[in-house]
């Protein structure tokens, strides 16, 4: 078992554990914090995969910006663990079972996929995740979606203003 594998397993455990903690935490603030944990673990995975750009962006955008926004909102609303009454246990159970089934079904699907058997992921090496390469592709082949996503931002901006504005 080399370092990469150890790191992989460690990050995986952290990610899964944090993810589970996101759902079981009663306090929303804790959930947010655990979710940031997940993001960090995932960023670790990115680094493992030599996708440095995404690793950084993930940290900045997700953990930094988005989660802080969440945190703001939660603070703003002053939500604490009392504010969420317990759901019926059977609803939780049904949700867990449904999610579990989903996982089970997809996993068994992957297990049957013959064509994946000898495929492996290039870990540690490979330079496509570097900013230079990504940037080149983004501003040549993917310039149209890049521009179009500005429309998305525009609409999100207008929307946030429309919704958030007091009238």
């Amino acid at each position, binding site marked *: 078992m080399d370092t*990469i594998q150890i790191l*992989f397993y460690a990050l995986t455990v952290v*990610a*899964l554990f944090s*993810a*589970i903690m*996101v*759902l079981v935490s009663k306090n*929303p603030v804790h*959930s947010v914090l655990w*979710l940031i944990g*997940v*993001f960090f673990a*995932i960023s670790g*995975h990115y680094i493992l995969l030599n*996708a440095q*750009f*995404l690793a950084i*962006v*993930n940290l900045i*955008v*997700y953990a930094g*910006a*988005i989660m802080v*926004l*969440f945190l703001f*909102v*939660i603070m703003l*609303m002053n939500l604490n663990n009392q*504010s*969420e*009454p317990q759901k019926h246990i059977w*609803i939780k159970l*049904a*949700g*867990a079972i*449904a*999610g*579990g089934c*989903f*996982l089970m079904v*997809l996993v068994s699907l*992957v297990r049957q996929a013959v064509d*994946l058997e000898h*495929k*492996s*992921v*290039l*870990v540690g090496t*490979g330079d*496509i*995740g570097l900013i230079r*390469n990504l940037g080149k592709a983004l501003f040549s082949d993917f310039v149209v979606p890049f521009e179009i996503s500005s429309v*998305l*931002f525009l609409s*999100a*901006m207008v*929307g946030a203003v429309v*919704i*958030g504005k007091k009238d």
Partner: protein
Amino acid sequence: MPIQYYIYLCLALFSIGIIGVLTRRNAIIVFMCIELMLNAVNLLLVAFSKMHHGAAIAVNPASQTGVEGQLFVFFIMVVAAAEVSVGLAIIVMLFRNTHSVDINFLNRLKN
């Protein structure tokens, strides 16, 4: 690293996200679980991109295959950011009116 490991991990994260959506009542946490699902997808896409990249450079070392996967992740992040801004605005608006973010109270509309 076999691709299956990544797939299992991502599916697990994705499913945890789904379970969260199904079991939690707080709209913000539900939304966070959705973000978790997106992150799972992101990781999976990166893993696949590296998988395809690995296969491609075996044939052609200069191949840039796999870039599109990572760029897709980039776009997902973009969209996620936009969505979060709108989503949180909606949640805040609702909170202003009802002083609650419990999705179980959202039942004026039914049948």
